[in-house]
């Protein structure tokens, strides 16, 4: 009986390892084409300015590096078959210097989204989902140590679900809620990697929150994943409407 259980566990472990071994990464770079608008200076109030001495924080709409690599682009696989349990690890948004960090992120449906407040200032955290079933909430969050972390969970996929602070009207963060784990957000140089994608044919989508608003259709490419890393690059042309 015990040996049978051990045998089954071994087979399951082997399957799990094999699954990971079968998975391959999709990587690439997002490049911005066209002149991005000049970012605007945030109208921080006196208390927020105190938390960022010497800084002149601006909006973060089109963060492109010198070579055009575009940050904060949400990249995901479309229509991945199967059911995926949400990870036990929460995604974390922090409030630092009266801004949400990160600005764009992804979470799996059912996954905990924890909002911290590292500022010595109170905020309110107000997610405003558009998809029915994802609850709108508005919660106060005092500065630490009185203020506790706030936890949110959304059960339906939604692109760029907005978190806002009404106390500081320039504070926004956008969480894309997916029904699978195959998504990521491009880094400062515009590069991205979606890890451990099972072999198969997919459509990969790159969506920028401003360039592709409000429908968020984005750019789509076909990709076939086998056993090695696939590269898919995107160019987002902001001179064209979505």
């Amino acid at each position: 009986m015990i040996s049978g259980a051990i045998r089954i566990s071994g087979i399951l472990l082997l399957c799990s390892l094999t699954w990971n071994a079968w998975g391959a990464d999709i990587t690439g770079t997002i490049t911005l084409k066209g002149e991005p608008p000049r970012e605007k200076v945030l109208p921080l109030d006196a208390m927020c300015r105190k938390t960022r001495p010497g800084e002149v924080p601006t909006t973060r709409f089109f963060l492109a590096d010198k070579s055009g690599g575009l940050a904060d682009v949400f990249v995901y696989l479309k229509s991945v078959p199967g059911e995926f349990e949400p990870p036990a690890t929460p995604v974390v948004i922090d409030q630092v210097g009266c801004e949400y960090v990160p600005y764009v992120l992804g979470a799996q449906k059912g996954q905990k989204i924890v909002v911290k407040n590292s500022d010595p200032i109170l905020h309110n955290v107000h997610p405003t989902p558009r998809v029915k079933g994802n609850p709108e909430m508005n919660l106060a969050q005092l500065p630490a140590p009185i203020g506790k972390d706030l936890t949110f969970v959304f059960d339906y996929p939604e692109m760029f679900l907005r978190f806002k602070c009404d106390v500081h009207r320039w504070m926004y963060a956008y969480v894309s809620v997916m029904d699978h784990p195959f998504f990521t957000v491009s880094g400062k140089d515009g590069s991205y990697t979606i890890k451990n994608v099972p072999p198969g044919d997919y459509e990969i989508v790159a969506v920028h929150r401003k360039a592709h608003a409000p429908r968020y259709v984005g750019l789509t490419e076909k990709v076939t994943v086998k056993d090695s890393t696939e590269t898919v690059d995107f160019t987002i042309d902001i001179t064209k409407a979505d």
Partner: protein
Amino acid sequence: MSGQARYHRPYHLFAVFTAAATLALIGMGGIVTSKGVGMSVPDWPDSYDHNMFMLPVSYWVGGIFWEHFHRLAASAVGLLTVGLAVWSFGRNGKKFLVFWLTPLATLGGGVCLVAFPERLADTVLLGGLGIGSFVLSRFWPRGEPAPRLVRILAVVAVVAVIGQGVLGGLRVRLLQDELGAVHAAVAHLFLVLICVIALLTSRWWQERGSAGFRTRLPGWTLLLAALLIFGQLLLGAAMRHRHAGLPVDSFPLVDGKLLPAADETYVSGINQRRNLAADYREFEPVTRGHVQLYRYHLILGSAVFLTVLASLIAAWLTVGNHWLVLQQGALVLAIVGQGLLGAWTVWSDKADAVATLHVVFGAIVLVWASLLAIIGLGRFPAAGRDIAEKLNSSGKWEMVSGQEAIREMVRDTR
């Protein structure tokens, strides 16, 4: 409100003050919406788990300052309205203070102390209200009650102001933008109500109304204008409470047209332009419905102008050169000014101060048209139907029944 003269200056001035406070409150509400900070205090009737009146000043930061100040100002207007209603009952108001407000507030404070000992601030406030009410009753004026109609309107105003407060609270608690638009609409109606009370208690109304004065202003046309202006305010409120900014970025022409096309091509284009504008306010995207609201707002604005202009011409032809007709002329100019403020709102890309000014001036224009309509319709002879006064043949005021005043007025008209 002595028996001899119906005009009671302190009460009238109090009504005018309440109206001014209400207009200021609408302005504060306008700032809250323009700045998009209405939800910066997530709870109600508490504020950040404090009794609203005891919120520490250290909490008054960012958007909280405006929202909390709006709530406090609303409470002050509520108190003024209760005062207006109680005072309208003249010396009988003292009974309300002694036998109702004092015991109820004291009892409420006691219950709060027993049931919610942790909420000491509530107990203190209710107890203070009870004591204050009792002290006030000692110095309560012994005047006559206001005319019946004024008393009724004042009581309606109390119900309205309470309802309005609850509506504002529900908008916060239920997270419903639509309730915000209703809240704005009720605020304007409430302002008109208070201004009507101020009009009915004015010396001008008392003397002219009592003497059976008929202005012959085109009352129905003015009433239509007032209703159209209110419709304009509803459309404006619906646009503002979508939190989507403006669906146009130029005025008077949008893409070469007076009215923007409410189709997907236009909506896509305007959203694209806005997306590339790096606006930290991050408005909701423009929709076709939003564009339609804007189109209706322009069309109705034109209809308001034409209606007011028509009423001015009608009044000029009927009455001639009279200061009330000049008032109508001024109203026409005010409507033009309101239109220019709307244009400025677009040109300024919906700057907070300009958009708020547009709201406040809209409220003033609504009150203006409503009061002129009431004067024109002359539905309130003698400011009440129970007792009236009229000038007798020797030029002195004498008391007559309201029915008699109306009969004489009809006779004079014939």
